[in-house]
């Protein structure tokens, strides 16, 4: 009996963790490339969740079918945020990007509250669960984790092998050097914001599939996204996915074997420990 429970906990942790990872991918890109603290990431994720939810509720579209539309909305939103809010504060100190994005988060969350109220939203169970021995595999969470892994792989391929991807990675290393080598850094910033918010809405769509949410859930995911990115390190998608899984497993182990109430503290304690040991985060860059 003990083994089954352990297996179940491990699986739960893997599922939750990979969803955290997927949700944080967008933040990793935006933070790594533009070096700004996008505290509104949680709100953007939940915006994606609402998009998927309403497309399902009004048109009966399964989140996976409505994904292309949701991602397009995300990308366009990212571009508009870049040109309206990000461009002016690119070179400003951290305090400015922190406050601008906190303002943006307040605006998004409260607009959602006004138009969509604080009622619980969530999709009914669309995918059945399977049993492997006495370990239950939750259908939608499995699909979400698979999507997370596929997206991470796609992002790695994109960053590694496409011209656009390489210039993004160069900007992560050192934007001054990158611009010297002919990389149009401003264009990269805009596209990165677009991709970042696209990934956020992808994460949101899968959260809508698996978890009930309200506008207030944004704050929870914003904090987790940062913990994941710091632990996973900047600049590489695999690190973010692993960072998410580490937190997911640690949390679920705390829930099962220590005290469920302490679970959220785990992510933050890990975050602080990683930072205390490596003051500039796992990937300490020259800047």
């Amino acid at each position, binding site marked *: *009996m003990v083994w089954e*429970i352990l297996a*179940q*906990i491990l699986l*739960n*942790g893997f*599922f*939750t963790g990979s969803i955290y990872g997927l949700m944080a991918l967008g933040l990793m890109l935006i933070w790594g490339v533009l070096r700004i603290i996008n505290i509104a990431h949680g709100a953007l994720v939940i915006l994606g969740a609402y998009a998927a939810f309403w497309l399902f509720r009004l048109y009966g579209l399964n989140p996976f079918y409505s994904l292309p539309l949701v991602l397009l909305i995300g990308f366009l939103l990212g571009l508009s945020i870049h040109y309206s809010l990000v461009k002016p504060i690119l070179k400003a100190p951290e305090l400015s990007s922190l406050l601008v994005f906190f303002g943006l988060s307040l605006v998004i969350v409260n607009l959602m509250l006004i138009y969509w109220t*604080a*009622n*619980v*939203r*969530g*999709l*009914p*169970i669309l995918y059945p*669960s399977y*049993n492997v021995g006495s370990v*239950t595999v*939750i*259908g*939608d*969470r499995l699909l979400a984790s698979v999507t997370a892994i596929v997206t991470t792989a796609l992002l790695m391929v994109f960053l590694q092998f496409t011209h656009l991807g390489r210039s993004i990675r160069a900007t992560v290393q050192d934007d001054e050097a990158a611009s010297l080598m002919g990389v149009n850094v401003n264009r990269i910033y805009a596209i990165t914001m677009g991709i970042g918010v696209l990934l956020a809405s992808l994460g949101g769509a899968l*959260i809508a599939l698996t*978890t*009930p*949410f*309200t506008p207030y*859930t944004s704050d*929870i*995911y914003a904090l987790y996204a940062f913990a994941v990115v710091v632990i996973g390190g900047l600049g590489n998608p695999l690190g973010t996915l692993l960072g998410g899984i580490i937190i997911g497993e640690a949390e*679920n182990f705390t*829930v*099962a074997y220590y*005290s*469920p*109430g302490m*679970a*959220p503290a785990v992510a933050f304690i890990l975050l602080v420990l990683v930072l205390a040991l490596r003051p500039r985060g796992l990937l300490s860059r020259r800047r």
Partner: protein
Amino acid sequence: MAWQYYVNNVTNGIMVNGTRYYVQLVYYDDQSSNTQVTALYERLITQDKVDFLFTPYSSGLGFTAATVAASHGKLIVATGVASDTIWKQGYTNVIGTITPASKYLVSTIDLLKTYDPTAKNIAIVYSDDIFSAMCAAGAKNYSLQNGFNVVYYGKYPSTATDLSSVLTSVKATNPDAIIGGGHFADGVLLIKQAKQLNVNAKLFSILVATDEPAFYQSLGSDANYIMGPSQWEPDVNYPVSYGPSNQWFVSTYMKMFNNETPTYHSAEGFAAGLYLQAAIEKAQSLDTAKVRAAFNTLSLNTFFGPLQIDPATGIQVAHQMVIIQWQNGVKRTVWPPSAAVANPLYPKPPW
């Protein structure tokens, strides 16, 4: 506001030794912060010069409001404040209208005892906030008093986005009944993942979330059989000796608020107003001390249910929770028998 309409139009004011008083309501948004509550209640008392007060929604804010009211010797009728501790602080000016948190899940246990004397194991899993924690503690004591054994008693963070591991531990104790929950999102999540993880029990009773129509919208048919405590339901029919009938309240409310069905929060507010009105009429005075004394001996049967307080502390003792159950898409009151419109479907078939 509905109560204000009732007093000013239906009973044509409150008769207090000869003069008719009409109700004027003053209210602000406390933005759920204690510091705001202090400022706004001070403003109500000293600037708006109100005679009587109602508490803001949530126990934490209720404390602060009660403190301010007590310092000015004002009476404050509690609605939306369920935690018992407010009545353990030595305040005498706080009048409880709704069933306190510690008794929220009591009627669920009574129902279980009545419909299934063989049931023995109860699992209690609740959200980590003052209200839910108190409900859970109350349920645990009452279960033990009634010979049940509590096979799981644990909390989860109120910010939880995944309860699969909590439910895995609950599943291991294979309980007859699973009760608890907390607020909206986690209540729905609990049921959704219970199904996904195939966690079975003959009875599910979840706090707060089950009362919302959004509960069924989010879960679809999986919501059926799930029960939940509620202070009041539109289809409840208590014997009424004071104040308007249930039908009147529901229909008037819907007329006033572009026919939205009232939730128990609005009914609770109306009942608190009604309770105050009855006490003023009994005391035949607006003086706080006299009205407070009137409450001690007041026992009403209203559309919201029986109302009576414990004279020493002011805590509500008579009002009982009703239990609702989703029965193929419709939310029905199934307990207590005196107010029920349908019998509970028990036991709940496996997922």
